[in-house]
């Protein structure tokens, strides 16, 4: 797109993520949005388009944006499960590239009960022959189960061990102690993680994220528009999203993956004009800790098959070769489903600005995120300006 505007992130905001809160999702959304506006040096009336990343509340766009003001702008709730907030920012970026709406705001917000996430199929709404419903009735559908299938095949092919997967959770918990917004901020040992209740072999309870309530907000605009404000812009240099793709000989990728990440990564790298070797800090979607191993390979951050050993040897720690999920990731932060992607974006923006405090990685210039959910995987690449 030769005449496309350059897109920048100008403001971000993240609330504390909690297992339970008395705050309504309208309050949470407003809290995050006010932080992002202050960060960008903007007024709410400057915003030309709003996206609300939210899965469980019909009317969430109205509930959140009307709590900010009634300026008549187009607002839309985006639900693509755990990838809602990053998909929102991608769609906003497409509007900014064309100049149609500039600036745009994401408010990602979720209020969730404890326990298993509700099964995402309403039997009344789908045909009896629907694949997901049939497999669900046969007891085959669970989110940790889907991640587990991926990693068990990986263990068989590459010798990855349960300890490598558990170590992803150990690092996540350790990093979360440096993140004041994280739900628990509590370290756990490898033994504690591995001995916790089995959920879907090989994934134990402490390798699974906790459902949370919380909100995130991201403001994007053109580079040109950013000059009118006192914010600290970070460039959104490349991005792409994908859904599940048929892959010959790979029934797991074909039937239960969250989307074809390698394809989205390739297009994002091409758009940004960088490669994996340029990445200084990363965020990947670890709703279950095996996601770290699978996704760092898909992003080309380590050779295919070596993800388990790469993590085990310390390469993804804050002081490692490629720091991953420096704020705890999904497992360490907690997971307000529709809002999670906003926290990934915020952490990378803080890292590139040099504002990540105790979590700060040394001089990153380029950052990458991968965020996924039922029906989507998103890859976004940011550059320091």
């Amino acid at each position, binding site marked *: 797109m030769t005449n496309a505007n350059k897109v920048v992130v100008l403001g971000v905001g993240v609330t504390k993520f909690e297992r339970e809160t008395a705050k309504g999702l309208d309050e949470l959304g407003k809290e995050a949005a006010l932080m992002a506006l202050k960060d960008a040096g903007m007024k709410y009336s400057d915003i030309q388009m709003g996206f609300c990343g939210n899965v469980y509340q019909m009317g969430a766009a109205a509930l959140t944006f009307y709590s900010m003001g009634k300026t008549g702008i187009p607002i839309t709730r985006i639900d693509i499960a755990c990838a809602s907030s990053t998909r929102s920012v991608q769609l906003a970026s497409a509007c900014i590239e064309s100049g149609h709406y500039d600036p745009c705001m994401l408010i990602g917000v979720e209020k969730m009960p404890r326990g298993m996430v509700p099964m995402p199929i309403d039997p009344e709404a789908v045909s009896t022959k629907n694949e997901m419903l049939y497999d669900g*009735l046969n007891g085959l559908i669970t989110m940790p189960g889907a991640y587990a299938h991926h990693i*068990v095949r990986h263990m068989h092919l590459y010798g990855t061990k349960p300890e490598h997967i558990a170590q992803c959770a150990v690092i996540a918990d350790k990093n979360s102690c440096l993140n004041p917004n994280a739900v628990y901020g509590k370290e756990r040992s490898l033994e504690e993680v591995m001995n916790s209740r089995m959920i879907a072999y090989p994934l134990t309870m402490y390798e699974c994220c906790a459902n949370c309530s919380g909100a995130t907000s991201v403001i994007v605009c053109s580079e040109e528009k950013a000059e009118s404000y006192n914010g600290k812009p970070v460039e959104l240099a490349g991005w792409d999203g994908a859904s599940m793709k048929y892959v010959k000989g790979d*029934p797991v990728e074909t039937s239960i993956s969250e989307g074809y990440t390698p394809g989205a990564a390739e297009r994002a790298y091409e758009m940004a004009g960088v490669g994996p070797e340029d990445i200084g800090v990363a965020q990947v979607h670890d709703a279950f800790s095996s996601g770290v191993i699978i996704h760092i390979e898909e992003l080309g951050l380590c050779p295919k098959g070596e993800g388990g050993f790469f993590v085990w040897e310390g390469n993804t720690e804050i002081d490692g070769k490629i720091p991953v999920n420096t704020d705890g990731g999904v497992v360490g932060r907690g997971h307000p489903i529709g809002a999670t992607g906003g926290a990934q974006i915020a952490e990378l923006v803080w890292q590139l600005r040099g504002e990540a405090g105790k979590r700060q990685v040394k001089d990153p210039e380029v950052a990458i995120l991968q965020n996924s959910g039922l029906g989507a995987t998103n890859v976004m690449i940011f550059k320091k300006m």
Partner: protein
Amino acid sequence: MAESEKVPMTGGEERLKISPDGEAHLIGMKCKSCGETIFPKASLCPNCSSEDFEEVALSTKGKIWSYTVVHASYGNIIGLEPPYPAAFVELSGGGYVHTAIVGCDPDDVKVGMDVEMDLLTVGESEGKEEVAYAFKPAST
């Protein structure tokens, strides 16, 4: 007393064919455009979007391609008590099926294990036995 006729559980009518003599197999489709074997059947080939395919009988034997052991689930109507293994089975001659593994200790399940189809009673409807397919270790 004669065994009652077996019929696929609701939703499985296009997945499982059971003959009057009790022989059962999975129904897949073979795309005439790209050659892929697909299970379950779909309106368009998921690989190439072609509508040109033929129905095929799939093998009742295969190997475990990947698996997990489900300890926490949303429940099931086929009588499985957690923990139970759930697997993708690569069928001989083509096709993959997402299925429960029955008839063995969950700890014994391995990638590459030989398995064969089994039928589980789910319920009864109009004097017929409703069944669902699952897979069990192959009898050697």
